[in-house]
């Protein structure tokens, strides 16, 4: 790791760590929480969609699995005495979902490109349908309730903010570790020419299944924090939401696939932009059209994403 890289990362994390202490209004903190959440999600998606070149559209399924796992763990309790304690479930939810991801990846990743995209989006709708219909487990469309976090009202956002910042740092460290080890090299060969990579004896299968498992494990942990932030109840259409998948993909494409900072940049630009548009254009959902136009523009003007395009100009 270069010293400038460490410095850049340190300044980035410190700045974000100080922000909530500056007495910002609640709506700004709420927005920042969603920015951090999507930065972590986009970084997680990048492991599969960017580094490996497998365009997963099913990540929202694992977001939902994490959210429901968390809600179910708290469902039986009437009230919480310590608001921080439920966060201790995150590692277990992450590892558990990663293990669920292993057989799914082993099967789904036998397909490639557009077929893989269809297989994974099918997975998303399977999980959403299950969330709607397994009434005994998820409460169906009525939603699943659990106790509200007992944090003081004036600093209610802080715990969620810091845990999401932690998950973002974890996702970025994992990305960095991947990029600087042989697994990153193996994933890059998969992205470039998978058949040739197999022919060179590169452990293609292990590398891509591992990347998928880590990616969905991270996604599920973010989903769990999201659920906790939903003040006591989650609904299937929001916990397993295709828009979350699409946001992850858009952010990575905007910032630059396969880069460390691209997904973070994409999330900061798109999520704050979306919140602004949603505010300006009101609840009319016109902001979704603006969103689609941004995506079209990216594909036309910067098909490789912002960071790789800038790096290309500088070479």
């Amino acid at each position: 790791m270069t010293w400038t890289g460490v410095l850049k990362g340190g300044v980035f994390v410190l700045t974000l760590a100080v922000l909530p202490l500056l007495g910002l209004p609640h709506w700004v903190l709420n927005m920042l929480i969603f920015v951090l959440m999507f930065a972590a999600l986009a970084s997680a998606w990048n492991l599969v969609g960017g580094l490996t070149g497998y365009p997963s559209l099913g990540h929202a399924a694992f977001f939902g699995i994490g959210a429901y796992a968390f809600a179910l763990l708290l469902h039986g309790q009437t009230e919480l005495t310590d608001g921080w304690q439920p966060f201790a479930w995150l590692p277990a939810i992450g590892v558990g979902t990663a293990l669920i991801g292993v057989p799914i990846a082993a099967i789904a990743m036998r397909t490639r490109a557009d077929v893989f995209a269809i297989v994974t989006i099918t997975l998303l709708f399977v999980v959403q349908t299950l969330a709607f219909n397994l009434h005994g487990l998820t409460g169906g469309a009525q939603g699943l309730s659990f106790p509200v976090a007992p944090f003081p009202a004036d600093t209610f956002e802080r715990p969620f903010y810091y845990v999401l910042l932690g998950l973002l740092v974890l996702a970025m460290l994992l990305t960095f570790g991947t990029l600087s080890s042989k697994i990153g090299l193996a994933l890059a060969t998969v992205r470039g020419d998978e058949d040739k990579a197999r022919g060179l004896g590169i452990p293609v299968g292990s590398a891509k299944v591992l990347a998928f498992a880590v990616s969905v494990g991270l996604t599920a942990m973010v989903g769990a924090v999201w659920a906790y932030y939903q003040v006591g109840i989650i609904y299937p259409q929001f916990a397993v939401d295709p828009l979350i998948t699409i946001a992850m993909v858009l952010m990575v494409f905007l910032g630059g696939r396969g880069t460390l900072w691209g997904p973070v940049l994409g999330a900061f630009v798109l999520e704050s932009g979306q919140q602004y548009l949603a505010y300006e254009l009101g609840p009319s959902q016109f902001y979704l059209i603006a969103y689609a136009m941004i995506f079209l523009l990216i594909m036309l003007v910067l098909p490789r994403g912002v960071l790789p395009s800038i790096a290309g100009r500088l070479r």
Partner: protein
Amino acid sequence: MSDLLRVDGLRKRFGGVTAVDDCSLAVAEGTVTALIGPNGSGKTTLFDLVTGYRKPDAGRVVFAGRDVTGRSPGRLYRAGLSRTFQQARVFPQLTVVENLVAAAGHRWWRLAAPRVSAADRRQAETLLAEFDLTEDADRIAAELSYGRRKLLEFAAVLMSAPRLVLLDEPTAGVNPVLVERMEEHVRSRHAAGVTFLIVEHDLSFVMRLCDPVIVLDAGRPISEGDPSTVRADPRVLDAYLGG
């Protein structure tokens, strides 16, 4: 000299076309064997069958005394059997050094090791010096000319210290200077103990470099011997010119 590679009664059919038909041949250890034949005679399909990229419908492939029929290309590669492709296949977004390191045949338990360790880099640089690619070491492979990409692909398969290298048209689409260099590289590696099987259309290249020469037509060998014998064989003329 023993046979490093032997195929017995190999057959591969695509729909109604039998690309390789009851084909038996052998490559002796320590030779530079050529495989020539008119277009569509099954040369590349035979390469695919030998290197595991396609599964034969019938027949056996024996490499270094072991039956390896139907083994995956990755396992064969690690066992010492490597190949290049007709259209040079390198990883375009990786640097030249990374292309070499990726081809070194690391197993899954090395996935956590550094992407390019100091030892990897030293090994790669030795090969780059041999192939006169040192100045391109940290360039993205996509930026290389086609001829240099072919050199890179050739250099990369040598990272795993192969016993047998199959070259599929090493001189196709490269300039005459590079053809000469390609020839030198084969010679020097051959002197270092590597056996070659080369598919090639440039017959003067084949006649200068290879012995023996095997001629394939309609999916099976029709003639085999040293270059002058093969050149004088009327069956070969028939196959090329149509009789």
